[in-house]
């Protein structure tokens, strides 16, 4: 269709329709009419009506005339979404265009294919391009016609087949020779052999060498293909092996079952019990059983004491230093009770452990000054160092007391006026165990429950009290001829039900003057009979008569040391060993051995590990003795500046003992290390002298030193040597002592004169032994000394090896 000058075809007219018009005619853009269905048929009357109502404002006003002239009733309005004609709508002006638009002419989809007439191709005129020449060259053409020969002057030449060139020559010759060459027809005659009848035969070409030419076949390698890949198949085949095994089946089998024990009836029992063999059996076996029972009761053979004592660090042979020092653990002092009083005896409570509690016995030393304070035994516990837990009232000053080993609630004490006092604290023991609070804030006081009557008391001070085991037999002996100094030894150790039957075993000490000793009164002690006894030692304070007794287990020996301080200047101490006989006659006992010991012995203690080793301290020395070694002390120490006032063995270390001095220092001595000087000196641990030392093994080891007014507890821990080394040490000491004395005797024979001069003096044998190894020669040193005005002076070194 032709385009109008405006750029759009003549048939249509682009229109702008306002939204009001669109709504009026129902042709809203993108709602009623869309791209897909852009045609909308409008009634002509509606358009005319709209034009009339709205006049110039109507959108159809530009096409007013056309609409009025429009022949049909409906006009086509097309939504032009792409604005192809300039506006969003266009109106189709002519009905033909409308029809055309609405019904586009059908495109002839089926085009009529022209049926091709099947004609054979016409041969075309061939144009020669020069190829017939080449064809003609290759064609075989006969250049002349075939010749026919008949017999007219034919010269027949028979030629062999040997040379063809000869034939040609001959032919040429003939041809020349003939007068009419063109008439002469050459006729070749074949050889006669050829004219003969032919017979063919086989002929192998391979027989003659040159009869044939052949091209031998050969394998061309170009045509052999090497197979580089070949398809293979793999199959995994497991190797199977049949095996079998057989388990041993254990069939559980009852060895025996018992549903009910077999019992005898009463009659059977009676008959069996009457049987002689049974009686015999019982009779013979009973002693064994009793023996074994007793063994069990006495001691446990399976305990290794050394292992039990040592802890992990200390086990084994050790040669180091005792590294720990004396540590003040606790000081016990009480203002009310222990002020201005001297402590005379000290004991640990044997069973109440935990807070280890101990006793103090306090005796007043200055009664005149401090007033009539009652003497007391004070219990202290570790938990409360300044308040005593319990007080025991004493009739007089108590110098010694002890716990009953079988019943720690029974305490016996010996007083200065010779009375023996007994306390029973079973009612008060709860205070000690801290089970009952003391609400009144006062210390409970317990009175004694028994006291020996004044008439039968000892005449002198009781300096020591010891408990003896039950096996004592007691005989009382009164020797009215002598002034008696009776030292009570103990009550019997009995079970609680027999506590009321107490027996006093009195040790009598007889004073007599013995001219052998030159008018110096000496004292001997007699003892009563006994069977086997425990160790007994008496701790002598510094009073008039000090006596120490030892009871040697199972042998009933006494080891007593008496000290007699007379008004004379010289003091002689005698160590005596008594062996009373079995019959129990006390007064027939004689001292087995007497040593002259210069100073008052204040401590005599057996080693807790060895039955026969005894430590004595007295004066400025201390010595170690062995029972049986009658020659003298095994080890005697040097003379110290200060007096040794207390000593005790260590409970856990066999070679260690502690010495307390007058100046308040404590020393730790170790026999295996060095016998000439202490291992450790703890100087001035107290202001006053040390009056008592008692060891106690709590965790670790504790020793405490008892002083004048204050009780101090020290703890000390260290290492120890095994028992065997100490045993060897003591054995060697004994041997060396014997040897030395033998040699000494020889020496003294030479110096007899000197001996007599020095008769008054006491000679000591010094045997300090340096023990580095156990198999070492011991060195002997002996000193002689004399006393000049009471001061010991070392004379000289008499002998040394």
């Amino acid at each position: 269709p032709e385009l109008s000058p405006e750029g759009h075809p003549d048939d249509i007219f682009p229109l702008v329709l306002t939204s009001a018009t669109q709504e009026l005619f129902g042709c809203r853009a993108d709602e009623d009419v869309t791209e897909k269905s852009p045609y909308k048929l409008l009634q002509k009357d509606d358009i005319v009506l709209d034009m009339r109502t709205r006049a110039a404002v109507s959108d159809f006003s530009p096409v007013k005339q056309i609409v009025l002239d429009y022949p049909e009733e409906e006009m086509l309005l097309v939504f032009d979404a792409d604005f192809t004609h300039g506006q969003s709508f266009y109106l189709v002006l002519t009905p033909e265009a409308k029809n055309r638009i609405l019904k586009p002419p059908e495109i002839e989809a089926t085009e009529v294919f022209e049926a091709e007439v099947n004609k054979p191709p016409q041969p075309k005129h061939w144009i020669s391009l020069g190829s017939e020449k080449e064809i003609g060259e290759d064609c075989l053409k006969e250049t002349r016609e075939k010749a026919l020969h008949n017999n007219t002057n034919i010269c027949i030449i028979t030629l062999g087949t040997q040379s063809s060139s000869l034939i040609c020559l001959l032919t040429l010759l003939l041809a020349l020779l003939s007068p009419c060459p063109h008439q002469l027809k050459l006729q070749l005659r074949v050889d006669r052999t050829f004219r003969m009848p032919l017979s063919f035969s086989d002929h192998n070409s391979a027989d003659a060498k040159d009869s044939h030419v052949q091209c031998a076949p050969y394998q061309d390698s170009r045509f052999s293909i090497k197979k580089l890949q070949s398809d293979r198949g793999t199959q995994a085949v497991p190797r199977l092996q049949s095996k079998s095994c057989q388990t041993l089946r254990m069939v559980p089998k009852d060895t025996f079952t018992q549903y009910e024990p077999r019992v005898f009836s009463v009659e059977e029992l009676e008959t069996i019990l009457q049987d002689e063999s049974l009686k015999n059996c019982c009779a013979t076996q009973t002693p064994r059983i009793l023996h074994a029972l007793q063994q069990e009761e006495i001691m446990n053979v399976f305990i290794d004491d050394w292992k039990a004592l040592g802890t992990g660090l200390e086990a084994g042979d050790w040669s180091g230093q005792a590294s720990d020092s004396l540590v003040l653990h606790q000081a016990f002092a009480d203002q009310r009770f222990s002020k201005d009083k001297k402590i005379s005896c000290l004991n640990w409570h044997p069973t109440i452990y935990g807070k280890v509690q101990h006793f103090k016995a306090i005796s007043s030393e200055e009664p005149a000054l401090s007033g009539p304070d009652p003497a007391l035994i004070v219990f202290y516990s570790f938990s409360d160092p300044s308040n005593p837990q319990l007080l025991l009232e004493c009739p007089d000053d108590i110098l010694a007391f002890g716990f009953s080993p079988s019943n720690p609630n029974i305490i016996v004490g010996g007083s200065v006026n010779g009375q023996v006092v007994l306390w029973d604290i079973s009612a008060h023991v709860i205070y000690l165990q801290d089970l009952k609070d003391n609400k009144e804030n006062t210390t409970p006081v317990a009175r004694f429950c028994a006291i020996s009557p004044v008439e039968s008391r000892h005449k002198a001070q009781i300096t020591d009290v010891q408990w003896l085991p039950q096996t004592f037999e007691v005989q009382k002996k009164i020797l009215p001829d002598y002034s008696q100094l009776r030292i009570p030894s103990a009550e019997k150790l009995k079970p609680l039900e027999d506590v009321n039957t107490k027996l006093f075993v009195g040790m009598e000490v007889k004073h007599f003057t013995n001219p052998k000793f030159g008018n110096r009164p000496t004292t001997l002690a007699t003892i009563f009979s006994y069977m086997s006894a425990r160790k007994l030692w008496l701790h002598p304070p510094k009073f008039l008569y000090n006596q120490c007794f030892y009871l040697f287990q199972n042998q009933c020996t006494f080891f007593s040391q008496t000290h007699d301080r007379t008004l004379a200047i010289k003091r002689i101490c005698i160590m005596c060993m008594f062996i009373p006989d079995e019959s129990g006659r006390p007064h027939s006992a004689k001292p087995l051995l007497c040593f002259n010991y210069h100073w008052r012995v204040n401590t005599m203690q057996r080693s807790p590990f060895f039955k026969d080793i005894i430590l004595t301290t007295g004066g400025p020395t201390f010595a170690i003795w062995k029972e049986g070694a009658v020659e003298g002390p095994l080890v005697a120490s040097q003379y110290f500046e200060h007096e040794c006032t207390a000593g005790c063995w260590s409970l856990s270390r066999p070679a260690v003992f502690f010495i307390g001095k007058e100046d308040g220092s404590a020393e730790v001595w170790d026999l295996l290390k060095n016998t000439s000087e202490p291992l450790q000196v703890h100087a001035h641990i107290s202001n006053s002298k040390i009056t008592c030392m008692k060891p106690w093994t709590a965790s670790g080891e504790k020793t405490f030193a008892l002083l004048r007014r204050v009780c101090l507890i020290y703890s000390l821990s260290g290492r120890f040597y095994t028992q065997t080394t100490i045993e060897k040490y003591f054995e060697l000491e004994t041997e060396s002592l014997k040897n030395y004395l033998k040699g000494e005797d020889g020496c003294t024979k030479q110096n007899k004169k000197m001996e007599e001069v020095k008769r008054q003096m006491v000679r000591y044998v010094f045997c300090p032994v340096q023990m580095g190894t156990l198999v070492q020669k011991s060195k002997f040193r002996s000193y002689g000394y004399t006393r000049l005005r009471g001061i010991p002076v070392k004379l000289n070194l008499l002998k040394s090896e």
Partner: protein
Amino acid sequence: MADVDETLKRIESHKGVIGTILVNGDGIPVRTTLDNSTTSQYARLLRSFTALASSAVRDVDPQNDLTFVRIRSKKHEIMVAPENNNLLIVIQNPCE
């Protein structure tokens, strides 16, 4: 019977003794201070034990013989005195 009783009483009154059992040759307890089940158990076990000990001793030296067996355990000590196939068993608490 009185002898046997008296002997056993002496043993029983010793310190630490828990119980005594007298077993005859058949392995049946004749006299006991413990209860029945314990007694039968002790009799049975100690009989075989004693037999084993005796055979061990005699294997080593045929002229030797077992006289006494003491078994020390943590809690107590068991003493067995064999004689003529009879057994006198005593159980004691060790004192320590």
